[in-house]
């Protein structure tokens, strides 16, 4: 910002509200919805913040860069960045640094991970989470099994990370055989359509489905049922995210394993922002703890308190 009055941007009557620019992903699915609502509900005016929410159009990184640039030009106090893509942020972050605006990464990290460019990253760990799914698969099928992966759109970095977590564990276990992988674009409907064909192509000889989000897992479950098989018995489906519909399905036995990718870290973010504004040092990476639900009972127990 060119002027000196960096504390406020628009003339709110309070005058002391901290302006936070939130470069967000926007509607994408249940998980994202929960995450961003949580952030928005945390940074309220009562808490002393004015949150400016800028979702991406169509998950397009370019629109995020535009929003980020605009926040810097406007001179907000803090920027929360929930990047759709990890690469390509260096220039923007450097500009924020020049403008002395602290940046906190929410969820997605940046590549290459240059910790000088941002204050901290708050996120669950995709690699860890998908590793936990892989470990479940290895332990649940000691005698081996055929598995199939339902991915998000090819090229998206979550997909790459979740693939890496899974592959690193499973590829060392020869008894787990990969039948194939297909994208279902995070969608229930497409997952159903894709998996119904996959089952036919393989004469139903698939025991594990690794669905990279809950929605696709639920679609796969429907496909399994329509093929006359029983999910949880003939085909076991593991998903990532831990949304309510998924836990319900788990409690009914239609899913077999749900790894939570915990979206509710607005509070953490709030604390961090306050620390940063007070000039305190914070850790460069704050991992948000996530649970795993490996049984119907666990899911049933968790359901009443599920917020998303």
């Amino acid at each position, binding site marked *: *910002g*060119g*002027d000196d009055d960096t504390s406020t*941007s*628009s003339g709110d009557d309070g005058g002391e509200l901290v302006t936070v*620019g939130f470069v*967000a992903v*926007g*509607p994408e699915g249940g998980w994202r919805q929960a995450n*961003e609502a949580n952030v928005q509900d945390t940074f309220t005016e009562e808490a002393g913040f*004015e*949150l*400016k*929410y*800028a*979702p991406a*159009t*169509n998950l*397009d*990184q*370019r*629109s995020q*860069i*535009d*929003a980020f*640039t*605009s*926040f*810097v*030009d*406007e*001179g907000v106090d803090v920027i929360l960045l929930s990047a759709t*893509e*990890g*690469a*390509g942020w*260096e*220039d923007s972050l450097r*500009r924020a640094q*020049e*403008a*002395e605006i602290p940046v906190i990464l929410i969820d997605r990290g940046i*590549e*290459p991970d240059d910790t000088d460019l941002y204050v901290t990253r708050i996120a669950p760990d995709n690699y860890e989470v998908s590793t936990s799914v892989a470990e479940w698969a290895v332990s649940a099928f000691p005698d081996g099994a055929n598995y199939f992966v339902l991915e998000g*759109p*090819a*090229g*998206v*970095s979550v997909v*790459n990370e979740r693939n890496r977590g899974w592959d690193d564990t499973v590829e060392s276990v020869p008894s787990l055989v990969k039948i194939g992988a297909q994208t279902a674009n995070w969608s229930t409907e497409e997952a159903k359509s894709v998996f119904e064909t996959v089952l036919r192509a393989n004469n139903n000889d698939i025991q594990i489905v690794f669905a990279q989000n809950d929605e696709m897992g639920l679609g796969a479950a429907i496909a399994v049922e329509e093929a006359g098989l029983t999910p949880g018995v003939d085909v076991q489906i593991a998903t990532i995210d831990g949304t309510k519909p998924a836990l319900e399905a788990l409690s009914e036995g239609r899913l077999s394993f749900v790894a939570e990718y915990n979206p509710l870290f607005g509070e953490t973010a709030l604390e961090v922002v306050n620390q940063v504004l007070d000039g305190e040092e914070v850790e460069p990476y704050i991992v948000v703890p996530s649970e795993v639900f490996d049984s119907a009972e666990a899911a049933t127990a968790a359901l009443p308190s599920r917020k998303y």
Partner: protein
Amino acid sequence: MTVTTRPPTGSAPGPASSRPSLADRLGARLSALPTVAALLIFIGMIIYGEAAYGRIVQFSTLSNLLVNNSHLIILAVGLTFVILTGGIDLSVGAVIAVSSVAGVMLSNAGWHPVAAVLVMVLIGSALGLVSGVLIQYFGVQPFIATLATMFLARGLASMLSTVPERLADDSAIRELATQLKIIDGNKVNDLVITPGVIAAVVIVLAGFVVLHRTRFGRTVYAIGGSEQSATLMGLPVPVTKLGIYVISGTLAGIAAVVYTSRLGSAQNITGIGWELDAIAAVVIGGTLLTGGTGFVLGSVVGALVLGLMNVLITRDGGIRPEMTTIITGGILLVFVILQRVLAARRRSETG
């Protein structure tokens, strides 16, 4: 019944308008009205933004408007050519993806940066040529031909790589995004331009000159008026049609260079939906999708209007995410309706 020539209303941007006769002609033409309207609305938006949110009329915001949208401007110039003939090119977004992924991979494989950049541009030209040949020599409809090219380009990009390909830190291609500070303001409030912006300006001027001062350009307009007439008038229709798709592809290649150098990385999913942005820019700038009327300068204004609109939405910050697309659509709608009303009003005044 002579058309009353009115004094030029507002000068068009760019040094090309320094010739008064030209501005005169633009102002006098009814077909220029939507373009003028777009310009006025753009100025109105700036004034509104400054009044409502502040910090719009400042070096950094305005120069970033250009820097951030330079690739869109380049795409819009290419699409102006195509749309003027009554065609359409849906492939530009995907062309950017394949061209930038290939360029970065080549550069990282040790190619000379100039060679890599050249290949990036040529990939665009080649894909444009594919569309052009399908359309001109096999009679495939532009929408379908360029849709096929779009799938092809996107597919090739994904087959090259599905992970972000990062340019080496010392790659010379990054230099293309160097910010040249013209005025060094407080903190980041600098007036900057990048080679990308310069490229965009040059391309816009070149596009203007080609369209208005060459036979090729006039043929483009003639085809948009009536392809059959243009053929029977003895104009080189096949070459021209082929040419405009090659131009559009080539400019997409250049846009890929500009965008990639800024981002420092390339990815197969880059550019999804950008063709619609570019088309919207062209339309907002007053070019008719049916072909025959429109101006390349209008498309520039169109691209800037879209960019500014995003800035204003971000500045507002309180808009619910589900509302943003509705607002974008709504603004686009208001725009085209306003232009229609304005054009109708003026026409009835002169008529």
